[in-house]
């Protein structure tokens, strides 16, 4: 897995709540058997609208997405973070995330950051007001900062932070507990 330590990038404001995984990557694109090839179909239906945020030239190359609450709700498809990652996003900021989507992000070097509604609104409005608005996400220090004085501490589970910083293969980690797994299996026949 790709490690995530610190990232600075252009911020795209997606001012919508309950962005579901069907919107992130519609079902007709889930038939591929690879982990790649999804980025071009990210937000496929919404991107047919020229006014959609990711179609605006000023947000081209954005790598940080800021969105409304309950981001990533719906289906368990890991194709959602695959598509976001391939499109170029490394971090997503929102007031809340769906559980399965959160897990899927951490498995793919993508950092979902939960902030307060007010913090998200502030970043959203800065990204809308200032062309070229960038944020720096620092996972070691657990901060989100811009060059205009904004500095926010965020919370992330200690273990998920560690795995992301190290880019760890957590299957390998579980396999180191082989003896415990075997012991469990023997005592639960």
């Amino acid at each position: 897995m790709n490690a995530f330590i610190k990232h600075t990038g252009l911020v795209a404001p997606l001012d919508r709540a309950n962005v579901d995984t069907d919107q992130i990557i519609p079902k007709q694109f889930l038939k591929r058997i690879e982990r790649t090839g999804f980025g071009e179909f990210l937000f496929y239906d919404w991107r047919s609208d020229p006014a959609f945020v990711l179609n605006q030239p000023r947000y081209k190359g954005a790598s940080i997405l800021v969105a409304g609450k309950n981001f990533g709700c719906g289906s368990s498809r890991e194709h959602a973070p695959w598509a976001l990652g391939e499109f170029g996003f490394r971090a997503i900021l929102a007031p809340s995330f769906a559980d399965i989507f959160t897990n899927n992000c951490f498995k793919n070097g993508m950092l979902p950051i939960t902030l307060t509604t007010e913090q998200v609104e502030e970043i959203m409005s800065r990204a809308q007001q200032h062309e070229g608005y960038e944020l720096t996400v620092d996972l070691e220090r657990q901060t989100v900062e811009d060059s205009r004085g904004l500095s926010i501490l965020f919370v992330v589970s200690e273990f998920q932070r560690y795995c992301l910083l190290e880019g760890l293969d957590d299957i390998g980690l579980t396999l180191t507990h082989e003896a415990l797994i075997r012991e469990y299996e023997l005592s639960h026949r």
Partner: protein
Amino acid sequence: MMPTLFDKLWQSHVVREARGEPTLLYIDLHLIHEVTSPQAFDGLRQEGRKVRRPDLTFGTVDHNVPTTDRSLPIADAVAANQVETLRRNCHDFGVQLYDINSPEQGIVHVIGPELGLTRPGMTIVCGDSHTSTHGAFGALAFGIGTSEVEHVLATQCLPQNKPLTMKVETRGSLPEGVTAKDLALGIIGQIGTDGATGCVIEYAGDAVRALSMEGRMTLCNMSIEAGARAGMIAPDETTFAYLKGRRFSPEGDVNYWKTLRSDDDAKFDRVVEIDASQLEPFVTWGTSPGMVVPVTSYVPDPADAKSAADRQAAERALEYMALKPRTHIQEIAIDRAFIGSCTNARIEDLRAAARVVKGYRINSSVSAMVVPGSQEVKRVAEREGLDRIFHEAGFEWREAGCSMCLGMNADILEPGERCASTSNRNFEGRQGRGGRTHLVSPMMAAAAAIKGHFTDVRAWEFK
């Protein structure tokens, strides 16, 4: 502290606990399907890993299989390749597959319980968010992503952070014509689509106890639409009777199963109460399952929304759904009706819908289809003559699969079409780009197909 049902299930599956790390949980049953597994098997191959417990892993094809004539090859080459890939993976790794022409084929969340693979006290995962369905049996069952599918294939374990617990306590009993689906929609309407995020819900109270296993599965199935990690119901005589004689559960450990209940003074992190006797048949009006009102009500006015964000979301939803504020729900005309999905395609659902349909014809402006949840459901329905009732009324009678719930196969809405659907998600484009989905119970969908618009099934004249 006295344990909840969830605490008991969690505790009995701990392989390893360490401070500051997620708990390593043992997984008793892993269900796989064609869409979320290919990349997981690829991962195993790349690392030279095996499936640790092929005997605890079962596969079927459901998401993108056609529901039309199964003697024909799958027309969509990409879908066909995905099905073929699952076939090869199951063969190579020694996993039992209920393939497209197997008599056991069906939606993964329908066949698990049907075969008795799903049993009380188990941990169950599947690369599908509606895995919460299996909690109806007093199991801890939750959806996972493809990396986690790979993790379980390789290790039969999953590192998990312990979720919070939420009790949904029902009072009173559901009135005639108000179903488990309406209870689920009523709960989501009350707590919101993120109301249970981070939580495992336990459903309790008289209205839940009175539900059949099919009804309980519908209720637990929709837990994810409230944001919950899982939903569960303590097993009881209804559960034991359902499982008795099933292939993988001929006898069952009933004495153990009886211990699987929350202690009387168990503490939940949150408690939500709902008066079941006050519920009505529900119809969603928007593009999120929480956008829901009773059939006797009106499409809400965004101007009445509690916050600016809610108002904006409601305005967007109404625009997408092509609905005007304050339209009476029963004035909304439909083009399509879909009776199917892991939420509502079990035999009891089809019986309830057939009871409404019997003796009627569907409205001339509506096209309607019934997609049984499994080949077994289809066989039982045909034995009971339900297929004839649907046929005579003008419904199409299809082969088992997920079908138009998510429209990965050819069963989709055309842009602008409006559908009364027994499925679980009314997201934009879910059933086909530009399609407009209204979530309802099977009886409500059947009644709408006949009338051509939504109608209150409590006033239905059964023939």
